[in-house]
């Protein structure tokens, strides 16, 4: 079932930069979509349009079940962007609090969200006491705590080291399988897109359009990283990107 249809969307900023032109994409409920493309091709712009943080100049977005209510979209940014004065639990509580929930009622959900990202023992820790990877985990827990219909992630692991990135990618797959939410994941790593996504959507250089889509044949499991199918998929996506850039 279609969760969202993006139809011939265009966005030109006041500066004259045309970030998107005629971008069309359909996202099914429960899907895991990677948006892959060169820097500056409009991936973040498209994500902000989906989130409703920005509006298109042309084209439209059609939601299958009506536009999402506040809190039905989770957003994970490139930086963890936690409140530095709040504990991990308070940071995860924030979206629920903004929607009017009391701490006593939210507590169980907050603890569960922290446990899901492997931070059960760190509820009382402040951001400066956590490593970069742990901060990103808090940020993911904050996005998941309201059980969003749609999880938008904008290069969330780009600033992390290789080990932490792999661990978080593995966890991300497990979270997606368990939470059964829809994920749109922006990245400019071919490897990350190939490993995580069920559908890899390749964008053209600016003004961004959807160049093509590649369905992943891999199982959503950490072991897939070591399979020959993974290597083949990476090769295929690279080829498409090279053709696109030429």
């Amino acid at each position: 079932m279609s969760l969202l249809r993006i139809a011939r969307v265009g966005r030109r900023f006041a500066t004259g930069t045309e970030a998107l032109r005629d971008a069309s994409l359909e996202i099914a409920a429960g899907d895991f979509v990677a948006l892959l493309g060169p820097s500056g091709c409009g991936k973040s712009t498209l994500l902000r349009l989906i989130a409703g943080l920005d509006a298109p100049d042309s084209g439209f977005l059609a939601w299958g079940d009506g536009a999402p209510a506040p809190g039905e979209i989770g957003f994970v940014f490139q930086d963890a962007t936690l409140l530095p004065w709040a504990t991990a639990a308070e940071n995860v509580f924030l979206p629920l609090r903004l929607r009017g929930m009391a701490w006593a009622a939210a507590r169980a959900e907050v603890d569960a969200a922290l446990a899901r990202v492997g931070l059960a023992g760190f509820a009382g820790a402040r951001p400066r006491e956590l490593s970069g990877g742990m901060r990103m985990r808090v940020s993911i827990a904050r996005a998941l705590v309201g059980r969003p219909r749609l999880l938008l992630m904008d290069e969330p692991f780009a600033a992390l080291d290789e080990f932490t990135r792999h661990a978080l990618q593995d966890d991300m797959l497990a979270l997606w399988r368990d939470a059964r939410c829809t994920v749109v994941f922006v990245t400019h790593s071919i490897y990350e897109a190939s490993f995580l996504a069920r559908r890899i959507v390749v964008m053209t250089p600016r003004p961004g359009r959807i160049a093509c889509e590649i369905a992943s044949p891999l199982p959503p499991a950490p072991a897939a990283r070591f399979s020959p199918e993974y290597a083949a998929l990476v090769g295929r996506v690279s080829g498409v990107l090279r053709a696109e850039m030429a």
Partner: protein
Amino acid sequence: MTRWPPILAGVAALLLWQGAVWASGVPAYLVPGPLAIVRAFLDAPALLLGSLLSTLVVTFTALAVSTGLGVGLAVAITASRWARAAIQPWAVALQVTPVVAIAPLIIAWVGDPFTALVACATIVAFFPIFSNTAIGLASPPGELLDLFRLNGAGRWATLRLLRLPAALPYFLAGLRISGGLALVGAVVAEFVAGAGGFASGLAYRILESGYRLQIPRMFAALVLLSAAGIAINAVLGAAGTWLLRRRGEA
């Protein structure tokens, strides 16, 4: 280790000063030595400490008013573009006008001397709190503001849960600067007011001792004034660090 150099330098300077006064035989009504200043203080401790208290009351009242006004106006200009356009230029105008120039007017217009002194000190102390808090309120990154929007937060929730807490370190830095300025403003206003003012603050004591050629007492009042300034700075600095550390930031 960094505590000792300033203390040693201070003691050395005092010794040199006292030695020079003894060696040259300058009379105390021209240049009093440290010992004469201490003696002048011990001659009238109640008078001088009473004056210190009077100046401090003006200083802290002005600081409290500056905090209320500065934070309130900073919130106003953050909340509304209209308020920003209306307030910002006047705040700057007030900041660049020397208080000595407008103090006589204020003292003449405002009947009550205490209110007049507080008004002058507030004019001097207000700006750092106002501008620092305004910068702090605008400091949260766009991503956090987006996150608040995505979860349906209104202006009030964004102010209370994001902008105000984010502004705290900026406000504290401004408060520390304003603390020193409030004292300066209070003293300047007392000087301008002279005998027409409260006739009790440290500045008035300095004027009075000058007229009566009680130069050691004048110096004693001066020393109390700088000690008060240093103490205000240190206390506000320590309170700020404590608050931020309690929030897990410093």
